[in-house]
């Protein structure tokens, strides 16, 4: 079970890195294409990427504690 923690972290970091890089690249593209080489799309993209990765990470770590409820329709 301890390995899972490590595995989670690996996934998390990898995922975050990928997302951040993707965000940065999209930002760069957008900045270059649409926003006159301003930095704000890059930071936006990186931020978005980081945020997504962070959120994923958090969700991954939280997953054992999430309760999945089923709605039971009254019939």
């Amino acid at each position, binding site marked *: 079970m301890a390995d899972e923690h490590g595995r989670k972290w690996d996934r998390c970091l990898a995922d975050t890195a990928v997302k951040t890089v993707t965000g940065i690249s999209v930002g760069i593209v957008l900045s270059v294409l649409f926003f006159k080489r301003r930095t704000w799309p890059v930071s936006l993209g990186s931020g978005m990427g980081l945020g997504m990765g962070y959120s994923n990470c*958090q969700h991954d770590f939280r997953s*054992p504690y999430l309760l999945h409820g089923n709605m039971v329709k009254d019939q």
Partner: protein
Amino acid sequence: MLRVFLRGANTKAQKCLYGRAHPTNLQHHRHYTSGESSGAAKVVAVGLVTLGSSIGGTVLYAKWDPKFRTAVEKNIPYSDWLLGMALGPNPYSPVTAHKKQVELSQPPSMMTEESRSSKIKKEKNIKEEPSVSTASETTSAPVYSAQSIEEECKECHHHGDTPVPAMVEAVDSMTEGPLKERPAEEVTARLAQQEQEDQDILASVSASLEESLASSAKTTLQAIGAQEAALQAIGSHTHKLKEAMEAEVPPDQKSAQWRDLETALAERRSTVNDAGAALLKARDALDSLRSVIDKAKESKVAAVQPLVLAAEENLHSMVVDLDQAVTKVQSAESEAKIVSQYTELVNEAKRQFQKELSSLTPEIQANWKGLTGKLSADDLNALIAHAHRRIDQLNRELAEQRVREQVHIEAALEQQKLEDQKALDKAVHTATQHSKEEARLEQERKLSELREVMEAEMRTQLRRQAAAHTDHLRDILKVQEQELRSEAEQVLNSKMLEQETHYRQLTQEQLDNFTLDMNAAYARLKGMEEAIDSHVIAEEEARKAHQLWLSVEALSYTLKTAGSDLPTKPLESAVQAIQDSCCNNEFALALASALPEESLRRGVYSEASLRSRFNSLRSMVRRVALIDESHNSLYQYFLSYLQAALLFEEKQAMPPTQLTNEDLDPFKLLSYASYCLEHEDLELAAKFVNQLRGEARRVVQDWLTEARLTLETRQVVTLLSAYANAVGLGTTQAP
């Protein structure tokens, strides 16, 4: 830095100052010590003075009080040596007191019972007989001098008196310690010894006496013989001399006669000398005999006396004979002197005549008888005239002589009387001596006779006493015999009775013992049979138990086959073996089936592997310590990581006996669990780990299940082995 340096310098300066202050201090100390030393010397001196005074006081008081001295000597080890050196030996010591006690006990012991004393007296009498006889001799001498020989009772009294002091003396001399009677053997031995001694003395004395007697007799005889010879010689000489003087023999025979005379004279001289020498020798021998006799007289042996007496008589007779011979010789000598005087006178006259003749006729010499032809008439006339003149002269002298005859005769008579008187005195003296000697010898003889008579008398009395004593003893012995016999019979009977009862007791005991033994043996036999039967059953049980135990051991061995991080072999086969071996044992079956499936299929991890896993888990748990259901964001994760980085807890902490809320902190729990694991208490560690909550718990879940599995299996196996051991112990018999 500077401050430190300054501090160091200060300390150094202080040290120097202090060092310089030290000598003064030391000087003060030295003053004190010297003061102290003078004080110490004073103390020592005072101590010595007190010691010496106490010793001196003790010695002085011991000198004054002997009891104190004895007390001191008793209590203090070497004080008796010291006190002896200082004061001399202890007059009042327990040793002298003891001696006094012994002496005091002597007089009461001397006052013995009558029979005992009489017995002792009798024995002493028998022993002291020789000494008593001499004592009686000395006592009877005054008795004899008083001439009361017939008073025998007085003699007995004396006998009675002398033994008592003798006995007392003997007792005193003999018994220093307790008074005891000499045994009869000793007495007879002593008597025999005494007799032997007496015999020896007697023999020696008689031998000496005989010897001296013989020698003295020989010498006396020799002396007497010599005296006789001397007498003879003197007689012959005088006779010859007379003959020579008076007889007219022819001249040639005259010279022969004169020669004979000279030889006779020489002979006489020699014999007289021999007689003198022999006399001396005889006197010496007699003196020695006398001394021997005196010595013999001193000895106390009674039997010596007659010998002594005889010797004395012999001596006396010899002395008498010797004296007689000497007197004879002396008379002969006096006669011879007269004759020699006569011859001298004659010779003198002849010489005178010769001288006158020679003066008258100077040319004629020597023998005038042969000169008849040679003489002339003148010569003859002169000769005749001379002869006439001579005759006238002689006639005148004769007349004078006749006149003076009476006076001369009276004087001669007086002289003769005196000489006779002297001779008489001497003879009387010797005769009185002889008679005295004879009387003394007579007395001694009578004395010895009396002594013998007395001795015989005493012997008869003693014999009578001894006979009476033996009769008395016989009677007493008879009585004693009777008494002792009855006593002995009594004792014998009682002993016999005792022995019989004892014997009966013993036999009864033996019978009882035998019955008991038989019963015991029978019971034992029965017991043995039962024991053997039960043994068989027990062995069967034991075999089964052994089988079970072996299978359980196999199972527990399989538990050990866990490598590090590898589980053990599956326990299925071992469990199967157990189930086979204990088919009729429900407990074992239940236990065997209680093992968890996982262990059967897969095996369990060893504790060591779990421990190592835990150590790696620990860091993980520390990192996610803050994460639980509600706090599980990534920020929480960051905080948790920070906490893990910054918080230090003990690696191992001893868990308390009761957990409080504080102890449920994961870090604390981890340290407790780690401690437990280090101390090989997996169960407790698992319990502690079980308390983790949240993410930490999720992390250690696997570990926990593994631990639980291991614990379960181990528990079952322990139970089984304990059960197998119990069964085994129960069935196996102790050797």
